[in-house]
């Protein structure tokens, strides 16, 4: 995997979490996934088109998604509901936008669609591209210590 495809997503995750949530994320080791199943409990999915065709998934476990929602909205939500689903959709949208801005610096112009959100573990997603899928884990602390993770899973046609 050429780093020019990875770096925009790394920068996007860091910038979006820092700016909108005041959270520093720490990237873990990238994984090459051989399955099309979602990595977390709630996942925003967005198709990318333009100079390259690809798919981006933003996936969080329940606790991570609730922490993101509660931090963003100043709320105290304990369950994944419509509001949390909406927030993860918008998070996907914003991460995609920031990543596309970074891709532009490498002369790769991408257009995005409206994201959709799926709730549930191991949901098979319809990546338009072939395997493998690159999965970037980003770790962050919630509620004073527990570690949560957001996965940015993506693949492109070459």
């Amino acid at each position, binding site marked *: 995997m050429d780093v020019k495809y990875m770096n925009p997503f790394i920068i996007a995750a860091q*910038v*979006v979490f820092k*700016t*909108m949530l005041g959270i520093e994320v720490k990237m873990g080791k990238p994984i090459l996934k051989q399955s099309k199943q979602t990595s977390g409990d709630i996942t925003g999915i967005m198709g990318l088109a333009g100079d390259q065709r690809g798919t981006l998934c933003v996936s969080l476990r329940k606790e991570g998604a609730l922490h993101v929602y509660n931090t*963003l*909205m*100043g709320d105290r939500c304990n369950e994944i509901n419509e*509001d949390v689903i*909406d*927030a993860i*959709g*918008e998070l996907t*949208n*914003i991460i*995609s*936008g*920031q990543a*596309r*801005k970074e891709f*532009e610096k490498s002369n790769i*112009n991408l257009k*995005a*669609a*409206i994201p959709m959100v799926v709730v549930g573990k191991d949901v098979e997603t319809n990546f338009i591209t072939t395997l493998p899928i690159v999965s970037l884990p980003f770790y962050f602390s919630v509620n004073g210590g527990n570690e949560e993770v957001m996965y940015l899973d993506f693949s492109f046609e070459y």
Partner: protein
Amino acid sequence: MKVLVVDDFATMRKIIKNVLKQIDIETVTEAENGKQALEILKNEKVDLIISDWIMPEMTGIEFLKACKEDENIRKIPFIMVTAEAQKSSVIEAIKSGADNYIVKPFTPEKLREAIEKARAKVVQGLGG
């Protein structure tokens, strides 16, 4: 001052409303896309429009162009708040008549500053 907030995500509409509340603007009307927003503008007097770009039914850029073609609403200040950060998008929006362009993710201060500028314009009678 009445603000029309247009975004297909309720999360972003709430975030924008919270920023508006911080600067004592509590008269807010909402729409989920450009088409709904145009309907609202037919019936309600609005002083400022804050709109997303990528939305179903009618996108923000189509909505902006429709506003600028309508003699009755073309002077209402229009702030685009969007994840579309590419240069070509910013240029297209500004050329189409957007008064300000804010890229998501944004800090509340950045949005507040843009709203304050638009409000000053309204107070001076340059908008609406």
